């Protein structure tokens, strides 16, 4: 008698929904209508219909009846309906439609409402408005519980026997705890009535049966109304038909497949699979997924979907300390600044000689590191210099890094930045409160230098990069100063993107933003949004720029190299013309370092996956992830659909699902005592010939290694030429493969379907996995590859031509070219950067482009040019 868990079955669900009795249907309908109506702006339906204790009077008595029908918002409606429908259906099936109508319009809503009003207003003296059908849910639950109690007095929970009638009470408690804004009292009132009814004390409220029967008989309701449940179950049964197990009674009108399935629900999945509606839905569904995915992203900047940033890690205490970097230290800064200015033209090693002298004079340990990288036939070399300030009383367990690259990402001399690092090194040395070592790092450039240093710090450096002679403990954070000008500044630009779209902990960014804006009064901006007016447009632009940076996965500053090592890092760039001087910048750093110094644990509290739309507004992964997932799921849905479709016998597509009479041989299916007659062709199993499709898909993915290798190993001078050659070849390649396929293998339609299915399946799986790591890249690629979902060998040449143009525009090479044109960069420079990223930063965007997106595109275009072999058998 062990209850087996019911398997979810769409067919069962559907039949259940179709069998819902009349009153339940109408209540659901009314609730839905009122919910939709509550969105109009003319009349406040909620205010009108809610049960507001203080408003209850003789003229407003209607509220006691209307309140269960009106809901607030989509979730409220939806969940209440989900809970209400089965309960109401049972009630109605038991008591009949008329009784239910009489009860639910009358006492079942009025009495709990009055009870609630009495307690809320009379005893508690409060005025909490309630609305929604949950009161009915609990009334019905209580009646059900009373019934259950009779048959199952208790259930076992561990060693405790729990009486079953208690369960609705438990539910009330859980609901009131877990769901916000629920009325505990309201639910209790509902329960009270339900228990009363269940125990039989309130049965007198039901209208007399003879009266109902009389009405029913007079109006012939049973004959007129569909889904009507009779009052008199003994004479007619619930639905006016006596239940029977005799299968021969099932009417089988020819062609009414629906009826056949009803009789065989759950016995044969193969029948459901053929349901014309199911076979038609997936393309629309997958299109809907894309639309919702994009729309989802677009609503993120709204106030309701994004959140204000906040500090999670209490130890950080940003801006809680007084900063002392001022006064005569400014003179020192100017001194260092003059020195740095004087070294502008010097070579790397001479500069480092001088810097070493400065650091040593401040009493720090100094070490240097040479590095040399080769990428795209070019050599990038230099020498980093760093100084370690030992934490007094510390034991080299932890360290934080202050970086000032000698030249910034644009190649400008970071003169104020380096001078500030030197001054701060001298200043920090005076303090005894450091609990972590502080490393002052001056890298030769902003791209290769930091990478070489961080790699060597973790001993994962490549050949050509020297090991570090002196090390400290685990790095807890890094802050980069990029301050390449002399004048005063207005605001702070915070750069936070890491390599491969990894991000630093949001707490670090929040700390800096809150120190800059809260303590120092310096504005903070992100993603080069120099002007941010906090409008939807600006938020969206910031977010999209962030996504673009994340999607490209390149280093946006010296800090980017730290992030893959789980060292949270950011770059601070002052910008604009204002009245903030370099000392203010120094104080921001000082305060940030004091906060980082407070950390007891590695930054872990806040988010690592987020999209920022302003310096103080973000969405976290839980909110934004569905958008990329939906885009990725669209491929998977289509892949599964095509798999199913490829297994079915092709029928003239226009006729699928038509109810026109067909004269095929019929087969009889028996399962236990159910019998059905179905056309034989539906049961025919069809072999899938998937060697060819799988071969093509796997082959094209392996082919992706070719461009990956070529673009990462070509000298930079040749890169543009190679690119144009490849682009031209790229447009011809699918055509070539396609015609070869048609000529040598003559693939059938099924093989084309499988080809597409495998390709989309791979795309779907990869992109949904990637979405958790690099959301933006998955989303962008998913969007650019979306047309692949609908590609197939079209019959119409016009559509084919249009699609060819579209696919040519959306080829990876074309997109790359368009991107370089839009941002005014040369193709050669972009490819050189990409090769540099591959060789030095360990960037893997290329792998996604050439080994995931490009093969998918190739397979798509192969289909476009494909000509499926016409079956010899002729029309089925």
């Amino acid at each position: 008698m062990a209850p087996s868990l019911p398997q979810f079955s769409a067919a069962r669900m559907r039949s259940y929904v179709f069998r819902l009795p009349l009153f339940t249907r109408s209540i659901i309908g009314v609730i839905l209508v009122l919910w939709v109506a509550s969105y109009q702006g003319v009349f406040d339906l909620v205010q009108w219909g809610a049960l507001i204790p203080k408003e209850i009077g003789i003229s407003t008595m209607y509220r006691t009846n209307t309140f269960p029908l009106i809901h607030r918002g989509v979730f409220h409606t939806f969940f209440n309906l989900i809970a209400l429908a089965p309960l109401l259906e049972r009630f109605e099936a038991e008591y009949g439609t008329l009784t239910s109508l009489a009860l639910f319009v009358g006492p079942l809503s009025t009495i709990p409402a009055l009870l609630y009003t009495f307690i809320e207003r009379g005893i508690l003296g409060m005025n909490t408005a309630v609305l929604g059908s949950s009161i009915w849910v609990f009334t019905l639950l209580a009646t059900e519980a009373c019934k259950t109690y009779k048959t199952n007095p208790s259930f076992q929970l561990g060693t405790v026997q729990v009486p079953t009638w208690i369960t609705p009470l438990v539910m009330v408690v859980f609901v009131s705890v877990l769901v916000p804004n629920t009325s505990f009292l309201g639910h209790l009132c509902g329960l009270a009535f339900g228990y009363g009814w269940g125990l039989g004390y309130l049965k007198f409220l039901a209208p007399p049966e003879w009266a109902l029967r009389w009405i029913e008989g007079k109006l012939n309701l049973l004959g007129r109304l569909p889904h009507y449940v009779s009052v008199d179950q003994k004479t007619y049964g619930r639905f006016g038909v006596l239940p029977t197990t005799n299968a021969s009674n099932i009417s089988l009108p020819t062609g009414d497949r629906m009826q056949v399935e009803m009789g065989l629900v759950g016995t044969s999945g193969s029948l459901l699979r053929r349901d014309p509606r199911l076979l038609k839905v997936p393309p629309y569904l997958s299109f809907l997924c894309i639309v919702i995915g994009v729309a989802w992203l677009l609503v993120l900047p709204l106030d309701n979907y994004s959140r204000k940033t906040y500090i999670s890690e209490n130890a950080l205490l940003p801006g809680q300390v007084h900063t002392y970097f001022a006064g005569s230290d400014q003179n020192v800064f100017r001194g260092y600044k003059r020195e740095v200015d004087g070294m502008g033209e010097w070579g790397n090693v001479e500069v480092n000689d001088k810097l070493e002298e400065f650091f040593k004079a401040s009493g720090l340990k100094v070490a240097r590191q040479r590095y040399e990288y080769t990428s795209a036939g070019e050599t990038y070399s230099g020498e980093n210099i760093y100084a370690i300030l030992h934490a007094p009383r510390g034991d080299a367990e932890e360290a934080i890094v202050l970086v000032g690259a000698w030249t910034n990402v644009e190649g400008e001399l970071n003169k104020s930045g380096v001078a500030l690092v030197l001054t701060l090194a001298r200043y920090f040395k005076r303090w005894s409160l450091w609990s972590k070592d502080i490393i002052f790092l001056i890298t030769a450039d902003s791209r290769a230098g930091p990478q070489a240093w961080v790699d060597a710090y973790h001993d994962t450096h490549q050949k050509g990069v020297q090991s570090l002679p002196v090390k400290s403990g685990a790095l807890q954070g890094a802050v980069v100063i990029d301050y390449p000008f002399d004048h005063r500044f207005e605001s702070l630009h915070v750069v936070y993107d890491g390599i491969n779209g990894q991000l630093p902990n949001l707490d670090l960014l929040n700390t800096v933003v809150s120190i800059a804006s809260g303590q120092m009064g310096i504005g903070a901006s992100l993603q080069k949004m120099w002007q941010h007016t906090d409008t939807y447009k600006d938020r969206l632009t910031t977010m999209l720029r962030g996504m673009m940076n994340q999607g490209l996965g390149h280093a946006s500053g010296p800090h980017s190299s730290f992030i893959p090592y789980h060292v949270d890092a950011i770059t601070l760039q002052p910008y604009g013309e204002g009245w903030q001087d370099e000392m203010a910048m120094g104080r921001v750093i000082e305060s940030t370092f004091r906060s980082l110094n407070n950390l007891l644990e590695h930054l872990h509290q806040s988010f690592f996956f987020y999209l920022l739309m302003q310096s103080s507004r973000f969405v976290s992964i839980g909110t934004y992830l569905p958008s990329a997932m939906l885009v990725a799921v669209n491929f998977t849905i289509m892949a599964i659909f095509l798999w199913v479709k490829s297994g079915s016998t092709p029928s003239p597509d226009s006729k699928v699902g038509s109810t026109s009479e067909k004269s095929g041989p019929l087969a009889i299916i028996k399962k236990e005592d159910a019998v059905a007659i179905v056309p034989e062709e539906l049961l025919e199993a069809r072999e899938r010939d998937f060697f060819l499709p799988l071969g093509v898909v796997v082959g094209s993915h392996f082919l992706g290694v070719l461009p990956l290798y070529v673009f990462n190993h070509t000298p930079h001078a040749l890169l543009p030429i190679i690119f144009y050659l490849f682009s031209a070849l790229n447009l011809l390649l699918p055509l070539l493969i396609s015609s070869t396929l048609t000529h040598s293998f003559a693939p059938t339609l099924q093989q084309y379907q499988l080809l597409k299915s495998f390709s989309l399946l791979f795309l779907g799986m990869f992109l949904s996995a990637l979405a958790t790591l690099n959301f933006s890249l998955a989303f962008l690629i998913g969007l650019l590859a979306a047309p692949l979902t609908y590609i197939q060998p079209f019959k119409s040449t016009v559509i084919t031509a249009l699609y060819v143009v579209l696919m040519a525009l959306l080829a990876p090479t074309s997109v790359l070219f368009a991107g370089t044109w839009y941002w005014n960069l040369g193709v050669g420079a972009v490819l050189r950067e990409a090769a540099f990223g591959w060789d030095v930063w360990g960037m893997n965007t290329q792998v996604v482009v050439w080994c995931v997106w490009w093969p998918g595109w190739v397979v798509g275009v192969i289909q476009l040019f494909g000509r499926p072999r016409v079956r010899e058998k002729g029309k089925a």
Partner: protein
Amino acid sequence: MWGNKALVAMRLILSLLLLLSAAIPHATASSDYHEQLNLRSLHPSLLLASFNFQSNTSLTSFEQQNFRYFPRSLGQILQHANTRELHLRFSLGRWDAESWGARPWGGAREGGTGVELWAWVEAESDEEADGRWLTLTNALSGLFCASLNFIDSTRTIRPVMSFEPAGNHSSSTLDNLHLLHGTLPREVVCTENLTPFLKLLPCKGKAGISSLLDGHKLFDASWQSMSIDVKPICEPGSSDCQLQITQTIDMVLDLQRSKRPRDNPIPRPVSYEELRCDLSKDYHSHDTCFPLDAAAQEEEWILSHIFGHPLKGTCPLADDGIDPVCINVPHARHVYASEGAHEHKDESGYKRCFALSPDKDFEIILPQQEISEKSPLEQPLLYAERSFIGYGQESGGVQAILTNPSSTNAIEFVYLETLPWFMKLYLHTLKAKINGVEEDIIKEMYYRPALDRKRGTQLEIRILIPANSTVVLTYDFEKAILRYTEYPPDANRGFDIAPAVITIGDIAIRTTSLLLPLPTPDFSMPYNVIILTSTVMALSFGFIYNLLIRRFVAIDEADQWDVRAVRLKVLAVAQKFMSRFLEKRSKDGKDD
């Protein structure tokens, strides 16, 4: 009650009498207690202060519980735990061997960061030794207010090659001696450890050099180490043995920081006038200043400024004629001492000592002075540095760089690594490179693998390092995943790995400790919320809803449970109750 008090009083009087009787015959003999403070400037603005307190007690009087200079509290613990030799270290910070030269006492009187304890316990068997070790750690834990009781089996090792007994033990006891060693790298040493330490001293920090010791200054030091060593010394050939206790405190003080007044310790920027600038720079002006390196000049300092108060006379118990305060500066350096103190200059040219007058406060003043001559820094025997390599949650590596700076002497040493069990060492990855070339320089190795949750890894390697060479020792390890209850409250900080101990003869050098990040579950909010809501939803909602909605009954059984049934049931219960009540009453009536 009264009896107890009387007993206590009796004991007090007795012990006083005993003390007197013990003191009287010794008063004439030379004292067995002496103390000395050595000051050495390491760098223009750093000062190393080494305090040394040493006393001897004859082993016989110790065994008779006749304590004089030897602290009774510690003595009884040692007797109770059958400990024949004890070494206890409290350390904080890092000795910067490159700038500061050799360690004080050659490294013999210091431990790794945190607390380190090793002792020779006399016992018949290993189990008995473990039991006594447990007694010892627990008792010392109470005595020194340190978490020494956390030195459990996972943190205890029995070094085989590394430590040698410092005292003289008779061969009969030597066979039964068990060496046990434990470290607590995470223990933060602070004032609560200093106070019991001072209480062990004969003058208890009230007089003599120990009066300078003050928690504020000691724990503000850049590096500090407190040590207690107890060992027996026997004259060769005679059975007359002495028990020696040596307590030392070494600290490296930052002069500039120490001189800041306690009520205003913030290093604010100096005023424009005080800023020392390089006037030779052509851009020098009223608002631009290139700071002048202060290293050329010797910092001025005054003893009472450095330690917060002057030295309060001498400890009257230390009267063996050893000068209590010495300072290591070149004779050319001006040193002014307060009145009543006698200066003795050492012939080496770099040391002078002072004999103090017993009751007067003592003060030393060193003025600012430009001096080319510096007292030479002693070169350390070995530079040792250890760090993690690799990254990630799964595995990692350790790299130890050991450099022999001597251009003539090869050094043989034992490298001892104590690793917690969750850091699973791969011994086959252990590689030693000498000057970048992989060579078989490991002469001997002792390895005791870890047992999960029972004991840690113990690895001892004997290496001979030729003159002027660098040995790089690397090995890989895998990180274990702990049970969630095994994480400390600050799980994301990482786990401290005890310093490696490098034993060269009778001195020991420690590397810095390491911070090992382990894969950590997300203990915070999302975890809780998801787990809680899912559980509640799955258990209560699904279960109850299902139970309520699903019924397995025949149709005709339904609807029988009505008011009458309830009424009957209530009635039945009431009747039952009543009948029982009546029965009881009738019974009671009978009894009456």
